[in-house]
């Protein structure tokens, strides 16, 4: 990072005066309802994501409880399907995406030297519609006939002709989530495009800003596609259209094409900002500049472009023409190349650095190894003939939990530990944080690694009951799941403890940290960079 502040805080008195003036904010609930401050909105996004992570996690616990032993013990199959469906929806749209948006809100203005997001009122609205979207989704579970039970991928016609009436609420709820995401994405793009401090050229932007910039374009491209496909589900179910019904001239496989045209870029929406986070943390704790900054930017852009050309690798068993299948197989294999470049760059950054291993670094290192394992299984899944055996088994469940939990979620946790001292002004409890890390690392692998074996041995996903040969492994996996769930309580403890007090953090917080966010005081004042810094 070659940013240099040429205008150090030489007007400290002036600044302090300004802060006093501007720090007038409504107290109590009104502050949070009316706020247009990027830091407040970022905090709300992050807390919302954490709450959703625990609600979605509770559903995962129900799933693992039922799967602990063969036979039906605790829930009905219909309810089990609701749990798998809503678990997926909540984790994707309620936990991972809002957490990244929260980090974007907090950090992007501070990283590019802007006073706030470009469109602060829209920012407020894009957060405040989210809780209602998820309230609708969660309350639909209590409707007669239950909530959505067709998997988070809601394949037609299971989600149209054969679904319960909560589908209308599901569609409405997804529409609201989509609107929220699109508004958030527009805000990120406008902010980065227009509000960079003088001298903050494109190729000086921190990678977190770059990856979010590209992610925001992906969001704007694909969220309308998701809105389109849920609307088609709605009209097929209630208004007599036949987009996905062969009897009326439609095609159920068309649904999957549209869904995955959204769904595959969505996967990268949930991982590109993670690349940005890891690219911030590794250099800080290796005390060495990021290796191959430019190639990181190009790799991110290549991944984003390729992500529009690989969607049908989720659909190899649907019976596509062989040439289409081959095209999607090659394109999918190709995407491993820029992803590999990223991993190599991180390792090269560490090489001959002077590393220390605080909690953010530990999570970032775990990210590199475990995300790469998820990448390897992704490469295996790209080999179409082998995919016929892997598809819709626990091998796939293992794959996407490695990229989403030990990938996206670990990066979010790393980011929280990394920037928490900047947000609260206090250092978190390092030894509690290490406990959180080691408990999470061990339990998450007990949870997801055996799923590879169970899948290869032939256990399909999304089943509430299974053949006896899978019994021992499932009991084991469930225990891993419960431990991973419990481990996250340590995280909440660390967060509360840090918010309440602790050792005061310095402005720079970490010895090796570089970038504008480390130039402002800790905790970051309510308003930062009202006068833009100048970067050489």
């Amino acid at each position, binding site marked *: 990072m070659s940013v240099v502040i040429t205008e150090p805080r030489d007007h400290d008195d002036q600044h302090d005066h300004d802060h006093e003036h501007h720090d007038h904010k409504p107290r109590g609930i009104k502050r949070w309802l009316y706020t247009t401050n990027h830091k407040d909105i970022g905090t709300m996004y992050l807390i919302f994501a954490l709450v959703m992570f625990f609600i979605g996690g509770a559903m995962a616990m129900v799933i693992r409880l039922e799967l602990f032993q063969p036979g039906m013990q605790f829930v009905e199959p219909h309810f089990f399907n609701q749990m798998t469906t809503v678990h997926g929806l909540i984790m994707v749209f309620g936990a991972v995406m809002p957490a990244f948006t929260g980090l974007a809100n907090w950090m992007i203005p501070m990283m590019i030297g802007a006073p706030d997001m470009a469109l602060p009122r829209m920012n407020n609205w894009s957060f405040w519609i989210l809780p209602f979207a998820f309230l609708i989704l969660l309350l639909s579970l209590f409707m007669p006939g239950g909530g959505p039970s067709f998997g988070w991928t809601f394949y037609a016609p299971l989600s149209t002709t054969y679904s319960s009436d909560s589908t209308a609420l599901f569609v409405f709820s997804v529409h609201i989530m989509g609107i929220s995401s699109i508004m958030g994405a527009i805000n990120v793009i406008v902010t980065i495009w227009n509000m960079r401090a003088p001298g903050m050229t494109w190729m000086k932007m921190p990678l977190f800003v770059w990856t979010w910039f590209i992610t925001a374009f992906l969001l704007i491209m694909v969220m309308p596609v998701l809105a389109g496909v849920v609307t088609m589900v709605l009209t097929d179910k209630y208004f007599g259209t036949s987009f996905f019904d062969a009897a009326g001239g439609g095609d159920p496989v068309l649904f999957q094409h549209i869904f995955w045209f959204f769904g595959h870029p969505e996967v990268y929406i949930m991982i590109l900002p993670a690349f940005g986070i890891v690219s911030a943390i590794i250099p800080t704790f290796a005390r060495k500049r990021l290796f191959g900054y430019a190639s990181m930017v190009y790799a991110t852009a290549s991944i984003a472009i390729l992500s529009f050309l690989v969607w049908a690798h989720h659909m190899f068993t649907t019976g596509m023409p062989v040439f289409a299948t081959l095209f999607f197989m090659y394109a999918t294999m190709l995407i491993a190349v820029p992803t590999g470049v990223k991993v190599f760059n991180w390792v090269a950054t560490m090489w*001959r650095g002077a590393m220390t291993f605080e909690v953010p670094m530990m999570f970032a290192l775990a990210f590199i190894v475990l995300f790469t394992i998820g990448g390897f299984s992704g490469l295996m899944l790209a080999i179409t003939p082998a995919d016929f055996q892997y598809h819709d088994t626990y091998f796939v469940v293992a794959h996407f939990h490695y990229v989403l939990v030990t990938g996206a979620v670990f990066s979010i946790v790393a980011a929280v530990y990394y920037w928490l001292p900047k947000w609260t002004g206090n250092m978190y409890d390092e030894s509690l944080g290490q406990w959180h890390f080691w408990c999470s690392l061990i339990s998450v692998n007990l949870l997801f690694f055996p799923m590879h074996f169970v899948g290869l041995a032939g256990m399909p996903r999304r089943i509430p009951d299974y053949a006896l040969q899978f019994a021992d492994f499932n009991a084991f996996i469930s225990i891993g799941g419960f431990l991973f769930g419990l481990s996250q309580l340590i995280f909440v403890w660390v967060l509360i403890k840090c918010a309440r007090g602790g050792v005061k953090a310095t402005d720079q917080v970490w010895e090796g940290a570089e970038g504008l966010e480390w130039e402002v005081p800790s905790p970051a004042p309510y308003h930062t960079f009202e006068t833009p810094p100048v970067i050489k």
Partner: protein
Amino acid sequence: MAKTRSIRWSLPTLLLAASANAAAMPLNMTKGVTEISREVYNLHMTIFWICCVIGAVVFGIMFVSILLHRKARGVQPAQFHESTKVEILWTAIPVVILIGMAIPATKTLIAMEDTSAADVTVQVTGSQWKWHYKYLGSDLEYFSVLATPREQINNRFPKGENYLLEVDRPLVIPTGQKVRFLMTSDDVIHSWWVPAFAIKKDANPGFINEAWTRVDHPGVYRGQCAELCGQDHAFMPIVVIAKTPEDYAAWKATEENRLAEEKAAEQELLAMNMEMSDLMANGERTYIAYCAACHQPNGAGLPGIFPALAGSNLILNDRRAHIDIILNGKAGTSMQAFGRQLSLKELASVVTYTRNAWGNDTGDAVQAADVYRVQQGEGE
């Protein structure tokens, strides 16, 4: 909804029971019993080992770095941060590896898609939650339904060896011959998966997909539906028995004879009247096997998705419509057409049962001939 079942077991006993029952689980993909499945297995192992080697190199360097390049050892960080040469190298090497991998994968895929010149063709139709097999060029067709008793699933009886992987009538195919499968579905998307053949193909409603296999050895091969297809997705297994061509031919002749006899018996049945008690007993069995998953054993249905039969207006007031909906299903809902799936005797019994169980006291004894008349489009 989330009706929790009462828990009648203690944890340690179940753990013991489970490990006593469980056959050892293989840790890897099956090699299967066809040439194609072995090729698939080899592709899987090749890409697996490639990943292992790359992983060992990358993680190895990373762990060496973690051991050596730590501040605690008093090292000073180096200053290098880019190298176009290295970047090109580690872009090019993966490309070469991937091309090496794509070539055999392409060959196998093209072979898998070649369904021409088949010796036997079976149409496979999925429906919630059973498979239907029809031998093209023969009258032979039948449904294949989960054979595991509900009592095992509900933990009232100990679980059998092939728990959830057993059916009443398996698919039978000849060994050494090319068998082509035509997949389709009557309702939602299902996916027909037999790991030993490396076949997993979606059954899409309104469309036909193709797959083929040539099995080396006689044997029993088990699989499951792989695509989420509603609440009983876990309960629609696939069992395929591969027999030598001679045994297969003998089996097929026997089955064709049996089918003809059944049809003749059905014609006789039209002239007979069954006793109410027989109809009810028979009807209850059929109801539990085919109807109870949705409409529930007590006829109460699941509010919002599956209508209640107890006190149903249609059942109590319109006998013809009642028979008709069972025979032909209801378009746009998950109510299937059972006219094709059940015998006249079963249909008559289940109609009688649902007209007289759970307080539906119509007193009607519906006979096979009554059902037959509705089936033929005649008035009652």
